[in-house]
């Protein structure tokens, strides 16, 4: 179905008056001819006025060229014919024949590139929610979408699906293969401590408990890679280089006497047994900082000596994987999102080619010696 993206461009059609006028004026232009028997020629007081165009072919070519130009500026598009057949997406691993009752529907696997169920089942997608959103965006408005899923879904997003249409969410018995459990490893520690700071040894002990390395260096030393947690035990403001390191994705653990940037998102991350804050932290750029609210001494922080101090610190420094298993009936998509506009075929390149050809023809017609000489 053809359409125009910028119908105002058709105003260019007014320019077709130009070749018409040119060809009329060229007609009026009298050709000179030597004529010695002039005295027997008598000028007519009112020469016959006829609207007559010269060079019809050339005029037509020029008109066509201008019309095409107007069309070009109006940005024509060709909308693809809408396929209204219902669409059924089946999660790989399920039996499509058992799940599908509609014969006319298109049945595809819910996998990357949506292969037809005629082919063998592909691997289960790791990100099926994204695929469902893609399907919703790709299908034209009004096409019925049915998604066949097992009772338990693996790899779900944290956000519940919100689509532009009401999806028939058909739950059949079955299960998806569980994702590999993710083992979260604690980071290595790189300790920057002033010589008078006694706290460094606790972090060395923590690293030993984690079975990770801990390096100790002076505050002026080069910064470690981003997967290493930096432990900063040096009083005073953070150097700019360290702030930038944090902002680009680093994690830093600070002692109480380090001045930290003011942040709105500052929260208490760890409270002791009586509820007093022990470690607070905030995000800074892509990275984050954590800071002890008390001095690093067992008198002030008795938890330093506790056996579960490395575990607590590990939980703070590593982010556990997000839960991704969900019961299918609880994950049924909601509707309400605005429908996506369907992509249309641009006709402008073809028009440009056509115009170039026409222009060549026009030049050839206008300049070739084939043009008839005046009689």
């Amino acid at each position: 179905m053809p359409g125009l993206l910028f119908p105002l461009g058709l105003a260019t059609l007014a320019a077709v008056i130009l070749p018409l006028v040119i060809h009329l004026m060229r007609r009026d232009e009298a050709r000179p001819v030597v004529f010695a028997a002039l005295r027997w020629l008598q000028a007519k007081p009112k020469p016959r006025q006829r609207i007559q165009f010269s060079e019809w072919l050339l005029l037509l070519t020029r008109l066509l060229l201008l019309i095409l130009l107007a069309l070009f500026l109006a940005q024509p598009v060709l909308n693809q014919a809408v396929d209204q057949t219902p669409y059924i997406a089946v999660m790989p691993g399920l039996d499509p024949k058992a799940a599908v009752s509609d014969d006319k529907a298109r049945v595809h696997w819910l996998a990357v590139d949506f292969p037809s169920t005629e082919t063998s089942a592909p691997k289960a997608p790791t990100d099926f929610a994204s695929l469902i959103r893609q399907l919703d965006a790709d299908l034209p408005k009004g096409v019925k979408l049915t998604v066949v899923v097992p009772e338990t879904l693996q790899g779900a997003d944290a956000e519940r699906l919100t689509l532009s249409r009401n999806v028939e969410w058909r739950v059949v018995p079955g299960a998806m293969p569980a994702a590999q459990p993710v083992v979260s490893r604690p980071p290595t520690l790189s300790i920057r401590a002033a010589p008078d700071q006694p706290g460094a040894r606790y972090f060395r002990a923590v690293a030993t408990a984690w079975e990770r390395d801990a390096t100790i260096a002076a505050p002026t030393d080069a910064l470690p890679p981003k997967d290493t947690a930096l432990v900063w035990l040096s009083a005073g403001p953070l150097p700019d280089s360290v702030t930038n390191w944090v902002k680009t994705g680093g994690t830093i653990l600070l002692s109480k006497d380090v001045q930290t940037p003011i942040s709105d998102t500052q929260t208490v991350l760890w409270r002791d047994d009586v509820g007093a804050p022990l470690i607070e932290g905030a995000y800074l750029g892509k990275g984050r900082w954590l800071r002890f609210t008390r001095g690093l001494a067992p008198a002030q922080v008795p938890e330093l000596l506790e056996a579960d101090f490395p575990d607590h610190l590990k939980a703070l420094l590593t982010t556990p994987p997000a839960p991704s298993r969900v019961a299918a009936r609880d994950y049924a998509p909601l509707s309400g999102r605005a429908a996506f506009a369907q992509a249309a075929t641009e006709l402008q390149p073809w028009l440009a080619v056509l115009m170039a050809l026409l222009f060549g023809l026009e030049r050839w017609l206008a300049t070739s010696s084939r043009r008839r000489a005046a009689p």
Partner: protein
Amino acid sequence: MTFDPIPPDVRHRLKGLRLTARRASGASGIGLHASRSRGAGLEFAQYRAYEPGDELRQIDWKLYGRSDKFFVRESERESPLAVWIIVDASASMGQSDTTRADYSRLDAAKAMAACIAELALRQGDRFGLISLSDKGLRVADPANGLRQRDRLRLELYGLKPAGEFPSAPALAPVWERIRAQDLVIVISDGFDEACIALMERLSAASREVLFIQTFTAEERDFPFDGGYRFEDPESCTELLGDGKALRADFLRKFAAARQTLEARLTASGIRHTHHWLDEVVDAPLWRLFGGGV
């Protein structure tokens, strides 16, 4: 490459053609043309009574034997002829048809002049050329022979249409050179009154004048369709007009003007014909000299 204005097919046809004059002087030697003057010759004219002073050998003694009177036998003298070719080289002669833009009236006139010279050369007549233009009037005195023909060709080769028809004072050489009884062939478009007047005066002064009026095919057909700017090359006046609208009026007026001119020429005893630019150049010569043959 030598300049030869006569096309080969025309040259071939010229063999059947002969220049004839209605009156020849007979005063200057023996030639091919019949003259009014009586004298020694092959063609018997008349007997007349002997007068003192006649040569004795002219007396017809046989007639004396029969009649016992002296009679002198007279014959027509056949005389040579001086042929003058007058070519109008004014700017209007440069007009050509659009369909054949490189062939002007003057080119046709040159070809006709060369044909006449060829005929005269073959008959042993003397021929000369006068080209008329107010930019310069060139005269080649009549003579005979191949050399004269080449001289004529040279004159024709350098002839370019320019200017207007010369005024009466400038025409003095024409009167000085052309003698009575000479054959004068004028090739012109005849649009200049001065040209017609010159021919009338020449004819009245007992020169035999022939006139070939050259027209372009456009003047006959007027095939113009659409807007044109008609320019007169001599007066440099212009006329803007639509070809179709002008056509009928022009053809009527032009035909009337031709008829008037023909009547004038006939009244002055000038033999005349016309030449269309799209016909062969010897056609007017056949009309003039082909006669009943």
